[in-house]
């Protein structure tokens, strides 16, 4: 059996992982994971939120030391004592959290840790030239090597991170959800680069929650569930989507957008955005959303979708136009006014903009409403927890213990806490910025259903997502945006991904 | 107050008798943070004095500039029922209350240098003469440059927020007025070498011609002299304050601007400790007919010049 196993594989795997385990202070993040990566392949790692994907790759890049198990590189057992050890072997990693330094230039970020220097003195000119070459290879001649990274968009930062991985002359590049903050165009570009790399014999370990992407780019797939391998090295061809979902979740998940419920023509207009503008970002944005309607904003990364939501919400002060909720004009630049009028925002970056990670779930859920449970400024935590439990059940939060710190929840469940926050508030207009970013399939479907249910209850929902499929599948009507200008507004059913892309590309050409 | 009746029969009313070992006196001593030379000298002189007497058990509390902390130290002394307390308060008024409580608890308090605001707070008070210092400095400068009505007189004060600095400056001003002069440039330092240097270098820059300069404190004077040296200035005379050995050696050498210094005794706390011992042991001060320790001792503020420096140098403090 063992002999046949070996003979069926090509000569030497680049990387082999056997039975890797890792615990954090009582949490067993990995309990026996296997992985085998061949040169020149794109090996996808799948798993739900919290399955242990990031932990696995951090063990492979020397950030975490595994408790047990073996890592072989070119057939040799290795100990990765630190990031440098992994980089020296030829394993470079693009981490899930953006790992660039805002205060440094693009070139400096790319070569951080292995600077082009003589006796510690930087060779600035050389570094810039090499950075320019790397960025050109990535198709981004628009990013200047001397630009400060803090001034780049998230996608730009991702490219810098990618260029850094390339600069290491790695033989294996690990990408932890690189596409999460990229739009279609960017993803296509990413895939082009990945193919170029694999053509040179470089192996890629690719992590993503977007199963469609994996079909496009992946060669083989390994699946992790609750820290253990449930499948290793499945070929992409011949593995059905349903199989993968079952391997990841242990059950069958129907992946379909919930059916649209026709919005009655008599439904009142709840949100009216008129000629809204923010200097330097977007102008002339107008749309209305009726009760029970899901409204989508589509566009490329950096087209200003987040800023539109934030401006409607009062987190940024509009420089032109008005926002009306139920006929009342909102005071510009005031979040409390917006919330008072019935608006709620689930921000783009859950961790840095949405949650108090060290605080328990219930305090996160009641962050906008705790005063309501209080009497004369006196908190009533018992009632807060009760109410949180109720809403936790409504959004299918797991685990539902209100005392758990938010930090310990998976991405999808953190998102549900934010939804629970606005459910508690009784929000009439819900603004959702990338509600499923970094959320696994199982949880995604749950969140879609939740959004639909909310709409059915008469909430007006505005959704921003970089996955066109998601915007088009979820929304009733869609507004297409490019560089802060509205290109079109229409029924979602009248549009498909190609139509939208065409629009955007034409918009760019003009 | 303590020992009233027993003092009707004085014990050893002679110097030798006072030296004789008596019952052990537990004395608590608390002073401000020894954050500059003169206060450092005050502390070491006090400790050295206590060392000389086998019958003194000295308790020293952490030097501090925080009245709250010093109060709690005195409270500790009261709790411990020491025999006497020698107190150089960080602020006289602020420590008056706790000193009064000590007195009420039967513990004689000897107030040193910075005076309490109530006469009932101390059994005895040992003071340097701050106003007198200013007067001495002013008078000396009047003698030296007073014949020139346009003479530029500069002053480098110590920590400006201390009442004693105000007293010194007042005395200086009053004495100068006597010969028709006034202070044309005044800066304040902080009793430290670095502060003296910084203040002096700025002052010298601001006043290109000076006839006389009074610097309140010889420890900061090291810095002041360094600044004067560095600026290469020698057109004026300088008078110091406190009377450190360094300053006196400078006067003795006679080749700098330093002409004189006004002594502000660093032995005040040491004197306080001696007085405390006498009080506890029911002794009186020798050379006084009076059979009790006096209430108030104001120490002289003599001027040290090259003429009399030999006489003062041996007792001067090394800052």
């Amino acid at each position: 059996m063992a002999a046949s196993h070996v003979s069926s594989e090509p000569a030497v795997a680049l990387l082999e992982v056997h039975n890797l385990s890792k615990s954090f202070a009582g949490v067993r993040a990995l309990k026996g994971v296997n992985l085998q990566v061949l040169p020149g392949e794109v090996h996808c790692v799948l798993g739900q939120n919290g399955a242990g994907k990031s932990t696995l790759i951090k063990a492979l890049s020397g950030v975490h030391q595994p408790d047990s198990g073996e890592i072989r590189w070119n057939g040799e057992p290795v100990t990765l004592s630190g990031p440098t050890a992994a980089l020296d072997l030829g394993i470079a990693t693009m981490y899930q959290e953006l790992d660039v330094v805002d205060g440094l230039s693009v070139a400096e970020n790319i070569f951080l840790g292995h600077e082009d220097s003589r006796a510690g003195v930087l060779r600035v000119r050389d570094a810039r030239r090499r950075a320019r070459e790397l960025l050109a290879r990535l198709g981004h001649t628009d990013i200047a090597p001397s630009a400060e990274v803090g001034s780049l968009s998230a996608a730009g930062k991702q490219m810098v991170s990618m260029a850094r991985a390339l600069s290491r002359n790695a033989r294996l590049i690990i990408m932890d959800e690189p596409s999460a903050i990229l739009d279609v165009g960017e993803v296509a570009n990413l895939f082009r680069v990945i193919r170029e790399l694999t053509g040179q014999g470089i192996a890629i370990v690719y992590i993503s929650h977007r199963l469609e992407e994996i079909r496009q780019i992946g060669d083989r797939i390994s699946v992790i569930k609750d820290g253990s391998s449930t499948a290793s090295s499945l070929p992409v061809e011949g593995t059905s989507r349903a199989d993968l979902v079952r391997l990841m979740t242990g059950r069958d998940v129907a992946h379909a957008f919930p059916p649209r419920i026709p919005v009655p023509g008599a439904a009142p207009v709840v949100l009216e955005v008129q000629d809204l503008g923010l200097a330097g970002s977007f102008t002339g944005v107008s749309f209305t959303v009726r009760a029970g309607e899901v409204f989508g904003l589509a566009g490329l990364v950096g087209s200003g979708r987040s800023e539109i939501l934030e401006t409607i919400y009062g987190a940024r002060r509009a420089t032109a136009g008005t926002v009306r909720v139920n006929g009342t004009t909102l005071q510009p630049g005031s979040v409390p006014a917006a919330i008072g009028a019935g608006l709620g925002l689930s921000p783009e970056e859950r961790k840095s903009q949405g949650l108090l990670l060290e605080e328990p779930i219930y305090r996160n859920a009641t962050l906008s409403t705790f005063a309501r449970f209080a009497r004369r400024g006196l908190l009533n935590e018992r009632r807060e927890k009760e109410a949180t439990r109720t809403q936790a059940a409504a959004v299918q939060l797991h685990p539902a213990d209100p005392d758990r710190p938010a930090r310990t929840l998976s991405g999808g469940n953190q998102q549900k806490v934010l939804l629970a926050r606005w459910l508690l508030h009784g929000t009439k207009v819900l603004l959702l910025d990338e509600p499923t970013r970094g959320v696994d399939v199982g949880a995604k479907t749950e969140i879609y259903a939740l959004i639909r249910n909310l709409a059915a209850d008469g909430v007006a929902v505005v959704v921003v997502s970089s996955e066109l499929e998601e915007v088009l599948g979820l929304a009733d009507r869609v507004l297409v945006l490019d560089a802060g200008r509205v290109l079109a507004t229409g029924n979602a059913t009248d549009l498909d991904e190609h139509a939208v892309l065409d629009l955007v590309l034409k918009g760019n050409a003009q | 107050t303590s020992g009233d009746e027993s003092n009707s029969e004085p014990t050893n009313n002679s110097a030798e008798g006072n030296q004789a070992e008596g019952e052990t006196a537990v004395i608590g001593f608390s002073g401000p943070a020894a954050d500059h030379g003169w206060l450092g000298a005050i502390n070491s002189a006090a400790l050295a004095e206590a060392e000389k007497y086998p019958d003194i058990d000295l308790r020293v509390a952490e030097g501090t500039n925080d009245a709250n902390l010093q109060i709690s130290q005195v409270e500790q002394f009261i709790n411990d029922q020491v025999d006497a307390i020698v107190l150089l308060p960080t602020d006289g008024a602020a420590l008056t209350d706790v000193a009064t409580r000590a007195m009420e608890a039967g513990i004689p308090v000897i107030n040193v240098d910075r005076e309490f605001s109530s006469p009932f707070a101390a059994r005895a008070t040992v003071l340097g003469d701050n106003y007198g210092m200013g007067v001495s400095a002013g008078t000396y400068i009047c003698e030296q440059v007073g014949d020139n009505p346009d003479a530029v007189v500069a002053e480098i004060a110590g920590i400006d927020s201390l009442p004693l600095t105000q007293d010194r400056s007042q005395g200086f001003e009053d004495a100068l007025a006597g010969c028709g002069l006034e202070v044309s440039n005044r800066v304040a330092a902080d009793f430290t070498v670095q502060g003296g240097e910084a203040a002096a270098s700025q002052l010298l820059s601001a006043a290109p011609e000076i006839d006389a300069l009074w610097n309140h404190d010889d420890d900061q004077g090291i810095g002041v002299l360094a600044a004067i040296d560095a600026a290469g200035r020698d057109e004026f005379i300088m008078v110091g304050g406190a009377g450190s050995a360094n300053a006196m050696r400078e006067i003795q050498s006679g080749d700098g601007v330093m002409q004189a210094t006004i002594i502000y005794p660093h032995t005040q706390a040491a004197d306080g400790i001696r007085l405390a011992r006498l009080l506890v042991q029911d002794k009186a001060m020798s050379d006084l007919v009076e059979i009790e320790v006096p209430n108030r001792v104001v120490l002289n503020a003599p001027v040290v010049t090259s003429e009399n420096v030999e006489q003062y140098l041996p007792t001067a403090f090394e800052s």
Partner: protein
Amino acid sequence: MRTWLGGSAGRNLGLALAVVLLCVVGAATSGDRFLNLENMLTILRYASITGVICIGMTFVITAGGIDLSVGSVMGLTTVVASLTAVQRTAGETSWLLMVAVALAVGMFAGLINGVIIAYGNVVAFMATLAMLVAARGAAELISGRRTQIVIEPDFLSVMRSNFLGVPLLIWIFALVAAAGWFLLNRTTFGRRTVAIGGNLEAARLAGIKVKRHIVWLYVLSGTTVGIAGVMMMGRTTAGTSTHGLLFELDAIAAVVVGGTLLIGGRGTIVGTVLGVLLFSILINVFTQNNLDTSVQQVAKGAIIVAAVLLQQRFAVRGTRRKGAL
């Protein structure tokens, strides 16, 4: 309640242990001179003034700020209040005026701090550093650098009174600490404070009026400074610009050693009280043992590091235990 017992109490354990240890050292080296009621009251009386300031500081630090101006503003409150007392027309309630003035000055300085920080977007360290310098200067200017003696007999007799054998100063500290605990843990104000310290952006997007709250936090700190100023006048019977010198460092040290995170998001009043006691007992033990000032300072430095390390160890263990639950 469970959170408190599980989290804070676990974290405070190390510190409580350190305090007990220090007491054992005190008892071992000084015996009855340390372990008697009077000495305990002395320790507490000393702790009470810094302690009150530390309660306000705990709120500010929990919200991710810092207040370097507490010491010099306290000096300013005593100067202004004692001057008012002197210039008032005699009357029964005049000492209440003095108290009111001290509180008002503290609150006003806090208001300025808060506005500059919240609306001027000046980082708290710099804004309150500026206030530190400026308030000391103002106090000197207003007092003419004279120590003003407080001669209100009513005021002094109140401040010196005992209740159930415990001096008023200690009662004030206890009350302020209890009120602080309540405010931090049981009210919406406290909840907002923790939220802002934990994630300012999230708090803002959740609809909390962050800027206004920050202003209130510094006003709160200023209020405790004003109370401390009143206590200081009662204790020293004097108002002077030199009151409160370097209090800021002592207060921050006590709060942080107590376990409040300097980066904000977590604050503990119990820890702060323990931190204040730690330093106050330390000084007492040193004095009892007649130790040199300089040795004391070296030891104090070492103890700060040791306390933070110890505190950290227990905090990690506390978190672990919670994580494992």
